[in-house]
């Protein structure tokens, strides 16, 4: 039998433990593992990663808006200090009803990360203790800004015309 690298062992153990829930698990490159799971079981996979595979150091929670496929993707990047591997635990949720179980109980560090994803994408995390605006102004009433259908204001053009007008008048 050939010796397997740490990344491959992780992929194998996750696949063996959750044969149904894991859609895809692969080694991206050295030190990078990507696991995509069904959105209703992300909590269990997270617990498994933390308790049995020593993924303890939360790196980032990232949201992606795939507007063509009408779905969001949420990616939890977790680093393992002992194994020196970064796992991307990803799941897709429908764009019309973006609700996901919060992983605050699993990794305490995701507290602010999830709050940020909530305000930037409007993805609701069930069980999160405090989903309120973190970075945006407190009287923000527009749509979540990082969604692809949020259009940035073209302020420059108007100001440019104003400027030219001022210059030409005197």
């Amino acid at each position, binding site marked *: 039998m050939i010796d397997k690298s740490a990344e491959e062992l992780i992929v194998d153990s996750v696949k063996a433990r959750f044969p149904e829930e894991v859609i895809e698990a692969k080694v991206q490159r050295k*030190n*990078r593992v990507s696991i995509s799971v069904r959105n209703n079981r992300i909590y269990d996979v997270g617990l498994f990663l933390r308790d049995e595979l020593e993924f*303890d*150091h*939360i*790196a*980032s929670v*990232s*949201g*992606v*808006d795939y507007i063509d496929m009408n779905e969001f993707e949420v*990616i939890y*990047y977790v*680093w393992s*200090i002992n194994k*020196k591997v*970064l796992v*991307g635990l990803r799941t897709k949720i429908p764009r019309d009803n973006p609700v996901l179980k919060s992983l605050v109980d699993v*990794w*305490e*560090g*995701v*507290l*602010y*990360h999830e709050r*940020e994803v909530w305000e*930037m994408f409007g993805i609701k995390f069930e069980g999160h203790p405090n989903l309120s*605006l*973190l*970075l*945006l*102004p407190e009287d923000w009433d527009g749509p979540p*800004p*990082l969604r692809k259908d*949020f259009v*940035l204001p073209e302020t420059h053009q108007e100001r440019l015309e104003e400027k030219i007008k001022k210059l030409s008048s005197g």
Partner: protein
Amino acid sequence: MSIMKLSIGPQHPISAHFRFLLDVDGDVVLKLEPDVGYTHRGIEKLAEKRTYLQNLPVIERVNSYCDSAGTMLGYLEVIEELMGLEVPERAKYLRVIAAELNRIASHLYAASLFSVATGLETMLMWPINDRELILDLLERLTGQRITYTYQTIGGVRFDMPDGFKEEALKRLDYLEKRTEDYYKMLLWNHTFHMRTKKVGILRPSDAIKLGVVGPNLRASGVKVDVRKDEPYEVYDRFDFSIPTGKNGDSYDRLEVRFKEVGQSINILRQALKDIPKGPIKKWVPPIVPKGEAYTRVEAARGEFGYHLIGDGSMKPYRLKISPPSFRNLIALPHLCQNIPLADVPIIYISLDLIPMDVDR
């Protein structure tokens, strides 16, 4: 027992851009809630509207508080990983030199802020003055004092100027000797010990659980450094150690930064010694292929994570930046529970949070 709500900021003596909402019982802080977002620019959204090259000055200003070079490195790493690009050797060394010089400047800045929070005015002036010497070097190398836009996709923009090496070595020697003075003035100072030792102890288990990074994590005794774990650029060729603290208190967090300055000087000497000759830049197409990558770099305040999704055009589809201060922010409410009100500034400043970095 009556609980009073107290709001500090954003105009306050420690640092602006931040607001703390405190629950205070007499003199004891029960709970602290940071109110951030005063410097939120929406960089992640703006990055989607600009080309990869136009993004250089934008990304750099995620943390333009003395650490532009280290911040930029991660962005370039992630693009180059997606492109499968190998940067010329000399460019790699020059990038490392800029980043390490910047790390020294950043730590000196942190030290000066720390001492002004403890009321030591002299130590406010000294590190800032010595930081000027480093900024002079960076200015010679890049042309700017704070925001360099020095590294670019596929290399660096300018080569090392004549006489830079000798001047740099001279100044680093001076700085190394000068660190003794800092120890005498600040770190061995009994008054300073009383103010900072056993204040804001962050246990290693808590630090890992909360996802704290950088010097704050190392001060708790956890030996984690991206430069050693996943060597990027040419960090695997240098001989350096990772300084760690013992107790994880505010004092250790400062001491680790001072020790890191020593290690940076060490790296810089090696880099200046064996920098090879050759080209400094490679021509690269403006289009980044389809794909996804996540890279980590160790900037002065900790680990930067960049997650890039390219869709085969000139603009990124999604660029997620996971900055160190955002990840260290969570330690602030954790540490500010049942402590005297007077310790809040010490703990805040010892974490070296930069609001630019938190908010993006």
